[in-house]
C-alpha cells in the first residue's frame, strides 16, 4: 500500500489525527486552561472540513472493503459541516458546568470517533466494514447521550439508546448472515451479483432495512427517538437528529441502489408504506408536544418520512434530491436546535410556552428560529421549499402522485405545529418573557452559518446541479 493509496482515506485519517491531538492536548494543558481545548478543536476541525473539500481521487482499498468516490466524499463533507456546526454550538454548554465531563476533550473525542465510524460506514465496500462502521458510529453516542450525569432522564436516554442500538444491530447482523449464507460473500458487488428473488434473500433485505431504519427512526422503528432526544443534552440531540440520521440515509440509499437494486419493486412498496406512516405519525405526535426537544424529535421523524419520496423509483435524480434535502435539513434543523440550545443553556427552559413573547427580548434568535422552522415546513423563499419540491418532483416523475399528495398534505399539517412555535414567539403575550440571552461568539457564528445556509442553498441552483453531476451513474 503506497502513501497515495492511503490518502484515499483522507477524511478518516485527518479525523483520527484531530481526535488524538485533542485528547493529548488536554494532558499538556494545565487544569485552568482546559477551556482552550475549544478554540484548538474548532480550528483543527475547520481545517479538517476544508481539507475534505480539496479535490480527491476515487478508488478502492483493502481489496474492495473500502471505497471512495466523488459522491461519497460529498456525503462525508456534508457530515463534516454538520459536525462542525454541532461543535461550535456546544461550546457554550461545555463551558457551563452542567456537563458530566471533567475534561472537554473527551466530548470531542467521542463525537469524532462516532463521525469516523460514519465515514467508514459510508465508504464501506462490504458488509463487515459496514457493520464495524455502524457500531463505531452508534456506541459512542450512548455515552454522550448519558453524559449529563446529574439528570435522571439523561441516563435513561442513554440506556434506551444502547438497548435499541443493540437490538437493531442484532437484527442487522442476522440479515447479513442470511445474505452471506445465500450468496457466499459479504462484498457488496458479489452479493449484488448473486441476488435474486429468493425468499431468504428478501428476508435478509428486510432485516438489514430494519436495522438501518432504527437509525433513521422510520416508523414503526421510531419509538426510542423522542425519549432519547428529550433526555440527551441539546447538542447531542442535534447531532443525533442531523448527522447520525443523514449518515444512515446515505448508506441506505447506497445499499438500495447498488446491492438490492434487483428487488426494486419490493423495496419500492416498503418505502411507500413506511413513508406514509412515518410522515403521518411523526406529524400527529408532534402536534401534541410541549417540550421543544420532543417536538423537534417528532418533527425530525416526520421529516425522515419525506426522504423515501426521493429514493422510491430508484432514480439518480431522486438520489440527488435526497442529498440536497438532507443538506438543507442539516442547516434548518441545526438552526432550530441551536436556538433551543442557546435558550436551554442560558435559562434551562425547554417548553413551548416558555417561548411566549420571545421576540420582545430576543429578536435575532426568534428570527433564526422562525426561518429554520419555515425551512423545515418547506415555505419559500427559504431553502426547505426547494428541498421538498424536488423530492416531490422526483416521486411524481415516477408516477407516485397519491404519495406526493399525502406528503404535501403532511407538509401542511407540519406547518400547523411549526406555526405554533412562531405564534408563541411572535404573537403570544407574556408579562415576563425569557430575558435577553447573550450567547457566545461560537453560537452566534453557528447561527449565522445556519441562516446563510437556509437562505442561500435554495437559490443557488448550481449546488443541486453539482450534486446531480456526482450521483449520475450510481446505479
Amino acid at each position: 500500500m503506497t502513501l497515495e493509496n492511503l490518502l484515499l482515506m483522507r477524511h478518516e485519517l485527518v479525523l483520527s489525527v484531530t481526535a488524538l491531538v485533542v485528547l493529548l492536548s488536554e494532558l499538556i494543558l494545565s487544569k485552568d486552561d482546559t477551556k482552550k481545548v475549544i478554540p484548538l478543536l474548532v480550528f483543527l476541525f475547520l481545517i479538517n472540513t476544508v481539507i475534505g473539500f480539496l479535490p480527491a481521487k476515487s478508488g478502492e482499498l483493502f481489496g474492495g472493503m473500502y471505497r471512495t468516490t466523488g459522491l461519497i466524499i460529498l456525503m462525508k463533507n456534508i457530515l463534516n459541516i454538520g459536525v462542525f456546526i454541532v461543535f461550535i454550538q456546544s461550546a457554550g454548554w461545555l463551558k457551563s458546568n452542567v456537563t458530566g465531563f471533567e475534561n472537554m476533550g473527551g466530548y470531542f473525542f467521542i463525537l469524532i470517533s462516532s463521525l469516523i465510524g460514519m465515514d467508514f460506514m459510508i465508504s464501506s465496500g462490504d458488509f463487515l466494514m459496514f457493520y464495524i462502521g455502524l457500531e463505531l458510529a452508534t456506541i459512542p453516542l450512548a455515552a454522550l447521550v448519558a453524559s449529563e450525569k446529574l439528570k435522571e432522564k439523561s441516563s435513561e436516554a442513554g440506556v434506551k439508546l444502547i438497548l435499541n442500538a443493540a437490538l437493531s444491530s442484532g437484527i442487522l447482523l442476522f440479515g447479513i448472515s442470511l445474505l452471506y449464507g445465500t450468496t457466499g460473500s459479504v462484498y457488496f458487488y458479489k452479493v449484488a451479483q448473486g441476488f435474486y428473488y429468493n425468499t431468504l434473500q428478501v428476508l435478509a433485505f428486510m432485516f438489514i432495512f430494519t436495522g438501518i431504519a432504527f437509525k433513521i427512526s422510520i416508523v414503526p422503528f421510531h419509538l426510542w427517538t423522542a425519549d432519547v432526544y428529550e433526555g440527551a443534552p441539546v447538542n447531542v440531540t442535534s447531532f443525533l437528529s442531523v448527522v447520525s440520521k443523514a449518515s444512515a440515509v446515505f448508506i441506505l440509499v447506497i445499499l438500495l441502489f447498488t446491492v438490492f437494486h434487483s428487488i426494486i419493486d419490493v423495496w419500492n412498496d416498503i418505502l411507500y408504506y413506511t413513508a406514509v406512516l412515518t410522515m403521518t405519525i411523526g406529524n400527529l405526535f408532534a402536534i401534541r408536544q410541549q417540550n421543544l426537544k420532543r417536538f423537534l424529535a417528532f418533527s425530525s421523524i416526520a421529516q425522515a418520512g419525506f426522504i423515501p419520496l426521493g429514493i422510491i423509483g430508484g432514480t439518480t435524480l431522486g438520489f440527488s434530491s435526497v442529498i440536497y434535502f438532507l443538506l438543507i435539513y442539516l442547516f434548518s434543523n441545526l438552526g432550530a436546535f441551536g436556538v433551543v440550545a442557546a435558550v436551554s443553556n442560558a435559562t434551562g427552559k425547554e417548553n413551548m410556552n416558555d417561548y411566549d413573547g420571545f421576540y420582545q427580548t430576543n429578536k435575532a434568535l426568534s428570527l433564526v428560529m422562525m426561518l429554520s422552522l419555515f425551512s423545515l415546513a418547506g415555505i419559500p423563499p427559504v431553502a426547505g421549499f426547494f428541498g421538498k419540491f424536488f423530492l416531490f418532483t422526483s416521486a411524481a416523475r415516477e408516477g407516485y402522485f397519491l404519495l406526493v399528495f399525502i406528503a404535501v398534505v403532511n407538509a401542511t399539517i407540519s406547518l400547523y405545529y411549526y406555526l405554533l412555535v412562531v405564534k408563541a414567539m411572535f404573537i403570544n403575550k407574556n408579562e415576563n418573557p425569557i430575558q435577553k440571552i447573550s450567547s457566545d461568539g461560537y453560537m452566534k457564528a453557528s447561527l449565522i452559518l445556519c441562516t446563510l445556509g437556509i437562505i442561500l442553498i435554495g437559490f443557488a441552483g448550481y449546488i443541486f446541479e453539482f450534486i446531480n453531476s456526482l450521483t449520475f451513474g450510481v446505479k
Partner: protein
Amino acid sequence: MNILTLFLIVPVLTVIAILISRTKEQIRVSAAVGMGIQLIQSIYLIFAYLAERSRGNIDVMLFTKTWKWFESMNIQFSIGVDGISVSLIALTGIVIFTGVLTSWHVDYLTKEFFISLIVLSTGVFGFFISLDLFTMFLFFELAVIPMYLLIGIWGSGPKEYAAMKLTLMLMGASALLLVGILGLYVNSVQTGNPEFTFNIVDLSRIDLPIEVQRVFFPMVFVGFGVLGALFPFHTWSPDGHSSAPTAVSMLHAGVLMKMGGYGCLRVAMYLMPDAANEMGWIFIILTTISVVYGAFGAIVQKDLKYINAYSSVSHCGLVLFAILMSDKISSNGAVLQMISHGLMTALFFALIGMIYERTHTRDIRFMGGLMKVLPFLAVCYMIAGFASLGLPGLSGFIAEMNIFVGAFQHSETFYRVATVIVCSSIVITAVYILRVVAALLLGPIKNEEFNFLKDAVWFEKASTVILIIAIAGMGLAPLWLSELISESLNPIIQKLSLLNIY
C-alpha cells in the same frame, strides 16, 4: 435590463432601506417611496406594453426573459406579461401603495409590519410576472405566509384563530395545486416537446391527453379556487378579512384573491381546455352558489368587515363564474371584475379601517349618521358602495355588464339558467349595500361620542382619492382597458372556444 425584474428588485431594496431606518418616520417614508416606485413602474408598464404592441409585436407574452435555474429538472426563472397580467400588476401597484398610506399610523413593531407587507406584495408581483409554474407556485406561497404574521400580530378580534385558519386553508389549497402542477410537468413530454417543463408558454403548445386533464384540472382549479373563495372553501375569507389589519384586508381582498382568478384562467383553463369544457359545469354550480350565497351572507352580517368579506366571496365567485363560461366577452368581464373588485374592495376596507379607528366599533347597529360628522369618509364610502352595486359610470357596472352579456350568449339552457340565477345577485347586492349605507351614514347619530369625531387626515385622503380616481376612471373610460385585456384573451379563448360563435 428587463423591466419586469425591477418589480422584484425594488421591494428588496425597500426592505433593506427599512431595515437600516432608525425612526418610525423613516420606515414609513421608505416604504411609501418604494411602493410609490412600484406604482409608477406598474403604470409605466401599461404604456410600455401598449407601445410594444403598437409596434406590431404579436407574441403571446412580452418582455420575456428566461434564466436557467435547475437545469437537470429544466426549471427556469421565466418572466413575461400579457395584457391581463399588466392590468393586474397595475392593480397591485395601486393597492399596495394605498395600503402603505393607510398603515401610516401603525405603531407596534412598525419595521416588521412594513417588511411583512412588502414581502407579501412581492409575492403578488412575482406571481403575476411568472411564466414558469415553479416560480409561480413559489411566489404564491410567498404571498400567503406573511399573512399569518400580519394577521396574528397586528390583527384584531379572534386573530390567532383567523390567522391559523387562513394560512392552513390556503396552504392546503397549495397542496392540491402542487400536485396539479407536478401532474402538468410530468405529462409535459408529448410529441413536439422532448423535455419536462414547467413553462406555461411551452405547456400551452402541448395537447395533453384528456385522461390527464381530467385528473389534474380539478386539482389546479380548486387549488387556485380556494384563494378565489370558491364555495365551499371560502370560509377562511370572512374570518381572515375581519381579523386582519386594514392594509392587509385591502391587499388580501384586493389582490390576493385575484391571484386565484388569474391562476384559474392562466393555468387551469388555458393549459387544460378540454377538461375545462368537460367539467366546467361542476364548478359553474359551485360558483353560482358562491355568488348568491355570498350576497345573502352579506345581508345578515352586522360587522362591516364581515359584510365586505361576504361581498368579496360573491364578487370573486362572479370572476370564477365568468372564467368558466369560456366566452370572450365574459372572460373579459372577469378580468375587469377582478380589477374593479380589487379597487373597490380596497377602498371599502381602507374606509372601514379609518371609521373603526374613530368609532372603535364595526357593528352597524351602534352606528348611524356618520355623514354629518365624517363627510369626506362618508362620501367615499358611498362611492365605493355604488361601485359595488354596479352603478353605471363606476367600475363595477362595466365589469358585470360584460360578464352577464357574455354568459347569457351561451346557447345551452344550463348556462343560461345559471346566468339568470347569478344575475339575481345584482339585486341582493343592492339590498345589502343600501342597507349598510343607510345604517352607517344616514339617519340620526346614535352615539353621543360620535359628535366629536375628526374627518380624514392627509394620508387617508390621499389613499382614498387615488382609489376613487382609479374606480371612476375605469368606469368612465373602460374601452382602452377592455381592449388591452381582450386582445390577450384571444389565445386562451381560442383554445377553449369549441362551442361559441365568437
